[in-house]
């Protein structure tokens, strides 16, 4: 253990150099720095389309697919039509509508990859939550989607239509077993504010691939929190488009990957309108053999997006040495007229100095570790603002920790 601290610190210094100098007191060690791109590796123009065949069948060599174990998503990529559904349970505050709408009638952000296009094409209809204009909700809208087995692929489309000047919190929970590919279209109208909390608390056999595609109107606000805890493989791609100036988006996420789990979060914030702000904070903890998290943070600032203010942060905490966290921040800037742009990424082993400090006050090692990991996640979880959900998520994280330190 003695030498591991020294090693850790040496690695930390290297890591800090590699990631542009994040220095805020927490120890970042064991870093696999984000894979540097060679000029030949620059991403081709991003395709957005409803047409499945606009996206080639993935081989695993593509930038979008290179971290994803394709064998585990193959049943989805096969694209066979299916009528299977998840069970839907909902809590709807007064004034909020939940309706099923036939496919094709909705103007939603376009799919970002082949699976998203397949989900849109195969889902047939969409489950639409409508918060009407200027309605301010004081209770959350809750949608609970649960799966009953991994036999048939489920294609899904959920639409959150938050009309102008309204204010809502939507909790989208996923539990049970499924092979589920989905589009979640998030439409935040002019001057509206949405807090979205999406929870992946699946059983261990679930494969879940989704494109959460948000479009913010003028002066709209979105605070999105993705919580990925359960499932065999979860791959969430979150894209944000700005339909007008003044948009403000915060994308937060926590993942806790156990042995064998693959939890992947890919973000694309497309700043195409002026004076918009984006903040990204994603944290993951990993434990066990073959535990794998992937975080891709793409931020695009287009020529028209003057006055953009963006910052993204990814933190990964390796609780056991054999876990693996990939972290790739990527900022493309096409205008010099911005307010600020930056990113930080650090992947570290457990901090022995924190552990020593807590233990030197009599706190047993396991309790001390729990306190540190809870603290690591607390920043994101405690900002959700739905106390019952915060408590439940922390309890689930406690369970995971219980397994970690058992």
């Amino acid at each position, binding site marked *: 253990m003695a030498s591991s601290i020294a090693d850790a610190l040496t690695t930390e210094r290297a890591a800090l150099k590699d990631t542009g100098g994040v220095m805020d007191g927490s120890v970042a060690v064991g870093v696999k720095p984000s894979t540097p791109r060679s000029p030949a590796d620059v991403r081709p123009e991003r395709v957005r389309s409803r047409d499945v065949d606009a996206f080639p069948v993935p081989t695993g060599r593509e930038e979008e697919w290179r971290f994803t174990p394709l064998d585990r998503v193959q049943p989805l990529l096969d694209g066979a039509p299916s009528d299977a559904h998840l069970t839907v349970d909902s809590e709807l505050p007064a004034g909020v509508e939940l309706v099923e709408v036939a496919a094709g009638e909705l103007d939603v952000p376009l799919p970002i990859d082949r699976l998203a296009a397949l989900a849109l094409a195969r889902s047939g209809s969409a489950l639409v939550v409508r918060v009407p204009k200027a309605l301010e909700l004081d209770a959350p809208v809750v949608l609970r989607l649960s799966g009953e087995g991994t036999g048939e692929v489920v294609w899904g489309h959920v639409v959150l239509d938050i009309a102008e000047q309204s204010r809502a919190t939507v909790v989208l929970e996923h539990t049970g077993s499924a092979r589920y590919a989905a589009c979640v279209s998030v439409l935040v109208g002019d001057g509206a504010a949405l807090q979205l909390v999406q929870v992946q608390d699946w059983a261990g056999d679930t494969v879940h691939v989704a494109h959460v595609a948000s479009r913010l109107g003028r002066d709209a606000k979105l605070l999105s929190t993705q919580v990925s805890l359960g499932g065999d493989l979860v791959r969430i791609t979150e894209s944000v488009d700005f339909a007008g100036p003044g948009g403000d988006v915060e994308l937060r996420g926590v993942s806790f990957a156990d042995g064998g789990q693959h939890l992947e979060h890919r973000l694309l914030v497309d700043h195409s309108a002026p004076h918009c702000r984006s903040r990204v904070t994603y944290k993951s903890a990993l434990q066990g053999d073959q535990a794998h998290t992937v975080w891709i943070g793409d931020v695009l600032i287009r020529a028209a997006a003057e006055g953009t203010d963006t910052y993204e942060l990814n933190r990964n905490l390796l609780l056991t040495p054999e876990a693996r966290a990939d972290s790739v921040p990527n900022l493309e800037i096409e205008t010099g007229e911005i307010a600020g742009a930056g990113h930080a990424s650090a992947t570290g082993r457990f901090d022995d100095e924190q552990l020593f*400090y807590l233990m030197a006050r009599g706190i047993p090692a396991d309790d001390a570790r729990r306190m*540190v990991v809870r603290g690591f996640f607390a920043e994101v979880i405690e900002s959700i603002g739905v106390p019952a959900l915060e408590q439940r998520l922390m309890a689930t994280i406690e369970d995971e920790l219980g397994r970690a330190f058992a």
Partner: protein
Amino acid sequence: MSVLEIHDLHVSIEADGAPKEILTGVDLTIRAGETHAIMGPNGSGKSTLAYAVAGHPRYTVTSGTVTLDGADVLTMTVDERARAGLFLAMQYPVEVPGVSVSNFLRSAATAMRAEAPKLRLWVKEQKAAMVRLEMDPAFAERSVNEGFSGGEKKRHEILQLELLQPKIAILDETDSGLDVDALRVVSEGVNRVREGGETGVVLITHYTRILKYIKPDAVHVFVKGRIAESGGAELADELEAHGYAKYGESEAGDAAGRPALPTGPVLPGVLAPS
């Protein structure tokens, strides 16, 4: 009455892949109610003594014994040592993001007292201790040591000392980096604990400044990893006047002119002088 006995303690660290001996045979006995000052030049091993007794994993005890009331401290884990009654006020307290001071203090008190203190009583107790140390109540909701000034960190260490009431407290350069006001507040905190008569205090310091506020019963001069001379409070005055030259030490390094070795635990971005 509690007693900490350190006998012929040898401690090594790993440096450049090879063990390097820092403590070369320390003998020291501290009883509850006594205050001992350990003074010495940079690199003499003062902090190493503190961290080795507390059980920091960076330090390997190669021989010697440490007992608290007869119990073998060296076989205890870090938390067991703390619960047995040892306390280390650190020179560079560690930041623990996301863990609030109040949560941390209550967890520590729960561990030390073997049961959770009753919430209402505890809140009062914590608040009163914070008032005595002239700390803003809002402090309790901040993350442990995160963004604290040097003075705030040291007050927070002494706050823990007052709340946890150890049998033996080792204060590692608690005076370093404090302005006169903070030094007074911190010293008053230490003196309150001393007045209880149940706690033995080891003050590790480079300067005599803090000894104007906290009167030691004994002063030990620490040189090259062991105690070179022991005496009463007057020994501190002598050191103030003449420095460590008579022990073959200059301020900057050891007798051979080598630079002082950092022997404290290495914290992020900080090389801890001993």
